[in-house]
């Protein structure tokens, strides 16, 4: 049995229900997926851990539906992780009885801590932040990290649906420029 896999081999082995391949998948991808979950569930490590567990179990269950022609394995898993995180966040905030998806107060404290960990001083946070307009930032936040539909965002922000769509696309294009 191989102890390492190419992406092709890994997908094949997972679809063949290989536990060893799944262990390999966890060892190699859990950290990256956990960082995605933590960007959405910022304030509760235990909850984020529960979501990670749920995500891997879902990957195992749904691997049959993964279609390589539609994208890379990681992209597929990333979207599972993102959707699971948002679902959790939403149901949790409903329990917190805020209609508007509000997060608990300690979220305000958790975020600055995280930015500190990332040494913002060395990478010119201000410069990058200033480059995106506020209206773009907020829309990406709502759509990508909060999972609101474009319709919902149009309602929340009081702007037309077409504008929401255009602004999100422009913001994503700009983001991509930074990533290059």
């Amino acid at each position, binding site marked *: 049995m191989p*102890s*390492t*896999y*190419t992406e092709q081999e*890994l997908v094949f082995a997972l679809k063949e229900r290989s*536990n*060893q391949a*799944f*262990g390999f998948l*966890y*060892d*190699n991808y*859990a*950290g*990256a997926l*956990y*960082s*995605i979950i*933590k*960007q959405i569930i*910022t304030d509760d490590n*235990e909850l984020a851990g529960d979501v990670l*567990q749920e995500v891997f*179990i879902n990957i*195992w269950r749904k691997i049959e539906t993964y279609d390589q*022609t*539609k*994208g*890379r394995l*990681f*992209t597929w898993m*990333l979207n599972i992780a*993102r959707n699971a995180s948002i679902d959790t966040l939403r149901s949790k905030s409903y329990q917190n009885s805020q209609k*508007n998806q*509000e997060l608990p107060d300690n979220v*305000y404290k958790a*975020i600055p801590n995280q*930015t500190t960990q*990332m040494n913002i001083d060395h*990478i010119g*946070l201000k410069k*990058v*932040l200033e480059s*995106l307009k506020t209206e773009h*930032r*907020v829309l*990406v*936040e709502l*759509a*990508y990290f909060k999972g609101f539909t*474009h319709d919902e965002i149009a309602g929340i922000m009081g702007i037309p649906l077409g504008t929401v769509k255009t602004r*999100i*696309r422009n913001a*994503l*294009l700009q*983001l*991509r420029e*930074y*990533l*290059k």
Partner: protein
Amino acid sequence: VNVEEYISSGIIETYVMGLASESEKAEFEQLCSQHPELAAARRDFEVTLENLAFEQAITPPAGIKGKVMEAIGNPDSLAVTSSAPPKIIAMEKAKSASGISIGLRLSTAAAVVLLIGMSWLYHQIEGQNKELADTNARLIAKLNTSDSILDKIAEEHKIVSDPNVTVVNMVGTRVAPKSSANIYWDSTSSSVFLVVKNMPKLPSDQQYQLWALIDNKPKDLGVFDATDDKVILKMKNTQKAQAFAITIERKGGSPTPTLPKLQSLGKAL
């Protein structure tokens, strides 16, 4: 379809980040199968995102792998896989990771910080909104209370300034020297009003009761609470009264006054 134009519309990023609508998805997948350059551009962005996530990887809490492996039904595989070296050798992602420039590393990290910054800003704004809404609600509640107090004061003033109304100043007895209240007795309509000035709070099973003394016989004029201050209370009517008295009775009042509990007394004339 002009593929270049299509790419520059932001559809790739929208699709890969899971923000495309069902119809956009279907169209994109269809076009990807027809235009290899579109699929290649999608792949580029996927690799970029993937590298970003691996750059920012956070070690998950210990114990989750065990639970996951157990859940998929073979706990034995746990020992095998966890003893394997956690190296990514043959994966394509590792190949591209080795070619990452410092600039890319910094800008990917910057992008993550940017996203976190957005999130922070959004919560700031939302927090401020909520604060304003709360303050507003408090002010409205306060205004309503003030309005109703003002109404009561106006009503009280009307009664007090009526020339037909007799004011009886109730003073405390030895048992309750500080108790005080005013009775406004309208001799034409027989109406009796009471204003609590200072009555000590009672246990919840007790209430104050007002009596009119007519030829030394008590007549019940109703019960009230110490908390009914700032309010003018309409009591039961009486045509005659030589004096008024207040006693402490069980909640709801008594048929006859408990005289040792006499709190306050005032003569009508």
